C-alpha cells in the first residue's frame, strides 16, 4: 500500500520559492490503476517523483507499507527503486549504449543477479518487442522504445509501477497499445500502477482519477470515462 501524507515540495528559496506540492495526502490501494491528472504546474509530476523516491519532499511522508521513504539512506532508496518500484518516463528511458535486452536486464544486473536469457526474452515478448532484443534504442521506433522501457520496469516484478506521460510522445494507436500494456499489468499480475497524464483518453484506462490543482488534491473520479474526465477538467479550469 503506497500512501503519501501531507506531502510538500518547495523549490528555491525566499522570494523565488515555488511550491509544487502544497500538502497532498492520498492512499494508492494495492492492485489498482490510478491516474493523476491536472493542468500543467499542478504538481502531478512532482508527486510522482516524490512517491517514487526520486526526489526528497520538503515536508510530509511517503510510505510503502510500513516503510517510510524519508528515513532511508541514498543506498537503501536505490535498492528500493531497483527491487520494488518500476517507472517509465515520457522519453529518455533507455541507456543509448545498451541493446534492448541489456537495458531490460540492467536492474537485475545492478542488483547482483544474472538473469537467464530466457527470462529477459520472456519480458520482451510480453510487451511485444521480443524480435528487437539485440537492437539499440537508436534503432527502435518511439513505441518500441516505450515498450522496452515498460519491460524493464516490470522485469524485477515491482510492487508499484509509475508512469509519467508514457504515451505523450507517441501517436494515438501506439499510445493506446502502451496503455493497454499497463492495464494488463494491473489486471493480470495484480501490481499497482500510478499514471500521470494530461490526456483524458489515457486517464480513462485507470480505475480512479485523482485531480491536482495548485499542488493540492482537488477531486477524485471513480471508474472514469474519457468524457467524464474531460468534463471535470473543463469545469475546473
Amino acid at each position, binding site marked *: 500500500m503506497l500512501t503519501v501524507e501531507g506531502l510538500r515540495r518547495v523549490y528555491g528559496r525566499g522570494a523565488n520559492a515555488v511550491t509544487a506540492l502544497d500538502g497532498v495526502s492520498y492512499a494508492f490501494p494495492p492492485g489498482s490503476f490510478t491516474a493523476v491528472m491536472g493542468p500543467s504546474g499542478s504538481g502531478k509530476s512532482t508527486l510522482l517523483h516524490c512517491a517514487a523516491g526520486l526526489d526528497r519532499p520538503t515536508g510530509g511522508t511517503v510510505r510503502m507499507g510500513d516503510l517510510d521513504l524519508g528515513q532511508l539512506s541514498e543506498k537503501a532508496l*536505490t535498492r528500493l*527503486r531497483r527491487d520494488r518500484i518500476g517507472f517509465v518516463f515520457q522519453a529518455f528511458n533507455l*541507456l543509448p*549504449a*545498451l541493446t534492448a535486452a541489456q537495458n531490460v536486464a*540492467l*536492474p537485475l*544486473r*545492478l*542488483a547482483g543477479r544474472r538473469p537467464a536469457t530466457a527470462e529477459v526474452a520472456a519480458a520482451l515478448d510480453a510487451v511485444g518487442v521480443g524480435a528487437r532484443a539485440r537492437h539499440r534504442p537508436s534503432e527502435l521506433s518511439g513505441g518500441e522504445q516505450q515498450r522496452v522501457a515498460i519491460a524493464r520496469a516490470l522485469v524485477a516484478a515491482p510492487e508499484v509501477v509509475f508512469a509519467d506521460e508514457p504515451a505523450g510522445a507517441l501517436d494515438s494507436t501506439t499510445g493506446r497499445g502502451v496503455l493497454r500494456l499497463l492495464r494488463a499489468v494491473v489486471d493480470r499480475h495484480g501490481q499497482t500502477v500510478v499514471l500521470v497524464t494530461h490526456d483524458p483518453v489515457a486517464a480513462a484506462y485507470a480505475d480512479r482519477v485523482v485531480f491536482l490543482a495548485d499542488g493540492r488534491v482537488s477531486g477524485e473520479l471513480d471508474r472514469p470515462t474519457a468524457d467524464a474526465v474531460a468534463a471535470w477538467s473543463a469545469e475546473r479550469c
Partner: protein
Amino acid sequence: MLRLAWATLRSRPSAFAGSFVALALGVALIAATGLVVAAQPGDRPVSRYAPGVVVVTRDPFLRTPGGATERLSAPAGVDESTVDRLAGLPGVARTVADRSFDAIAMGPGGPVAVPGTRSRGHGWASAGFGPYALAAGAPPTVDGDVVLDGRLAAAAGWTVGGTATVLTEAGVGTYRVAGVLAPVDTTESAVFFTDARAAELSGRIDAVVVVPEAGRGPAVAPADGLRVLTGAAVRETEPDPVGEAYAESGALLGLMASIGGFVSVFVVASTFALAIAQRRRELALLRVVGATPRQVRRMVLAEAVVLGFGAAAAGCILALPVAYASTALLRRLDVGPPGLRPTLAAGPLLLATGAGLVVAWLGVWFASRRARRVRPMEALRQADVERRRMPVPRWIVGLVFFGAGIAMLCAIPGSGGDSRTSLSLLVGEVLVVGVAALAPVFVPPLLRVVAVPLGRSVTAELARANLRVQTRRAASVAAPVLVLVGITGSFVGATSTLLHSATNEQRAQTVAPIVVVPAAAPGLSATAIVTASTVEGVAAVAPIVDTHVNLVTAGGVEEYNAVVVPAGAVDYTVRAGSLGDLRGDAVAVAASFAADRGWHIGDAIPFYLDDGSPATLRLVATVDGGLAAGSLVLPADRMRGHLGPWSVSHALVTIAPGSTVDSVRAALAEPLAADGAVVLDRQTWLDRSAAVQAEGVAIGLVAILGLAGVYAAIAVVNTLVMAVRERTGDLVLLRRAGATGRQALAMLAWEGMFVAAVGIGLGLLVTTVTLVTMPAALRTLSATAEVSVPVRPLGAVAVGCALLVVGTSAVAGAAALRRT
C-alpha cells in the same frame, strides 16, 4: 560494471575520444622523455691504461667520523712516500707516479681541441702503461720537448720538429715537438712532457700506477685515505666528457619529465571531468534504474581503466616520434651530447604505461566522486545548470597548496644553486594546483572584470550568461591555459628574478674597473696574475678563487660554494663583525646562511675544505649576499695549498692614480692574451655574465616547457572540440530564436575569449604571487634583490593561448553549425 563500461565505451566512442586523446598524448610525452633519458652513449673509447695495471689514488670521498660521505670537488694528490712504499710491495714490477693536469693546445687562432676528449698533460713515464706508440719522432729528452697525441697534433697542425704552445695552470709555454703518437681512440688527447717538467707544471701526484709482475695478480691492499682500482674500475680516473654530457642532459630531462607528468595529470583530470559532466543525464538514468552511487563510480573508474590501457598503447606507439622531436629540439638548443638519439627500450615504455594508468586513475578520481553525487532527478531535466557551491575539502586543498607554494618560494634563496631550478619549477606546479582548486572563488569576479572592456554586444552578453552557468565546461577549457601561463610566468619569473638580483649583487660588490677572465682554460693561470701585476698603471691584481667547503649536518655532509677573496677586493656590505679579521683560521659568511644555522660572531665552526682536510674556522663577519657567488668567504692565506686546479675564476684589477682605465686595459691586453686571458672593463664583464645566464634561462624555458607547452596547446584544442560538440542543441535554439549563423559563431568566439581570459587571469595570479613573494624572500639575503617581470615570454604564451582558443571555438563552431 566492467561489462557496462566496455559496452558504453564501444558504442559511443566519440564521447570518449577527447579523453583518449588527452591521455594518449600524455603517455607519449612521458614515454618520449624516458626514451631520451635511456639513450646511452655508444661504446666507450679505448682506455689509457693497459689491462692488468692497478691504479692507486687518493680517496675522492670525504668520510667523516660519523659515517657520512660526500664526493670532494678537489681531492688532494698522493704522497711521494706512498709511491716508494708501493714499489716495495711483493709482486710489483714497477710503479709510476702519474701526474695528470689540463694542458690546452694553443693554436694561432686560439685553443685547439679534439672533439669528445679532454686535453691532459703527463710525464713521459705515464705513456709506458698505455696503448701509446710513437708514430714519428722520439720520446722527450730535454725539458723543452713534448710528445703529442696524434689527433691533437693533426688538429693543431704541428709536426715533429715544430713548435707547440701549451697552456697549463702554471702558464703558457712553448715547446719543441719531439714526437707524435699514433692516434688512439682514448678520451684524453694527451701531451707528454719529460717527467721533470711535468713535476714542475703540476706539483701533485694524481695517481700511482702499479704494474704487477707478469702472471701475478695485483697485491695491493687499500690503505687509509687511498683508493685502489683494478680491472675495469681503473677507467674511473679517465675523463668522460661524453658521459658527463649525458648526465647533464639527464638532469634537464628530469625536469622535462616532471613538468610533462604534471601537465598530463592536470589536463587529463580536467578532460575526464568534462567528459563525465557531459554524460550527466546518462549517469542519472543509471541511478534511476537502480545503480547505487558506488556502482556508478565504479563504472566510471572501470571506463577509465579500459580507456587507460588503450590510450597507453597508443601513447607508446607515438612515443618514438615524439622522442625524436624532443632530441631535435635539444640539438637545436645546443643542449646535451652531440650524438644524442633516443633508444627504443622496453623500460621507459612500461614505465610510461604504468604512469599513464596512474594518471588516468588520478584524473578520473575526482570526476568519479562527482559522478557518484549525480542525483536521479537530473535524468529528467533538460537544462544543464550546475550548482556553484565550494565544498570544504576544495577550500582546504586550495589554501594548503597556496601556502605551500609561498613557503617554497621563501625557501628558494636559502637552497643551493642546483636545486633552485627544480624548486622554481615545483613552485609553479604547486601554485597552479592551489589556484585551480580555488578557481571558483576567483572566476566570477574575473569574468566581471574581463567583460567590462570586452563585450557590450548581444552576442557577448549571451556568451557571458552561458559561461556563468556552465562553469564546469569553462573550467576544463581554461585549465590547460592556466597551467601554461602559470608555470611559464612562475618559473621564468622566479629564475629571472634570481638572476637579476644576482647580477645586482655582483654589480654592487665589484668596484674594480677592470676584470681579467680566462679565454680558453677553466681558470686563470698563475703567470697571468703575475704578468698583469707587472704592467704599468696597475695598482693591484686580486685573484678571485672559487672553491667549496663541506659542512657536517644532521643529514650528512653538504658541499657549499665558497670564494677566496684578497682583502678589500670585493665591496661587501658587512652586517656584523669585521672583514679585517679575515685571516688565518677565519671565515665570513652570508648573514642569512649564518642565521639559518644559528651561528654567531666568534663561533668556531668545523669544516672540511675542498681537498678533504679538516679546518676549524672562526666566524669573524657576516655579510650581505650569497646570490651571485658562494655564501662563504675564506681567507687567502689559510687556503693556500688546499685549492683545486684552475680555481682562479677571474681577477679584479685596480688602477694606480694617474692612469686611465682605457690605457691600462690596452697595456694589459697583449701580454695577457699570450697567457690565455682576456681583459674586460667592469661593465662589459657584468653584462657578459648576465647574458650567459639569461641565455641559460631562455634555453631552460624552451627545453623544459617546449614539449609540455605543445601538449597543453593540443589539450586546449581537444577540450574545446569536446565542449563545442555538445552545444549543437544550443546553436539550434539560438538560430530558431532569430540569430544568424554569424551571430552564433560570434557568441562562441566571445565565449572562447572570456574563457581564455579567465585562464590567463588565473595564470597571471600564480605569476603575481611568485613575483611578489620571491623578491621579498631574496631581500633577506641581499638588499639588492629586485623583481624581474618576464614580459616577453608571458605575453607570447598569453597571446598564443588566446588565439588558439578563439580560433578553435570559431572553427569547431562553424563545423557544428554546418551539422545542424
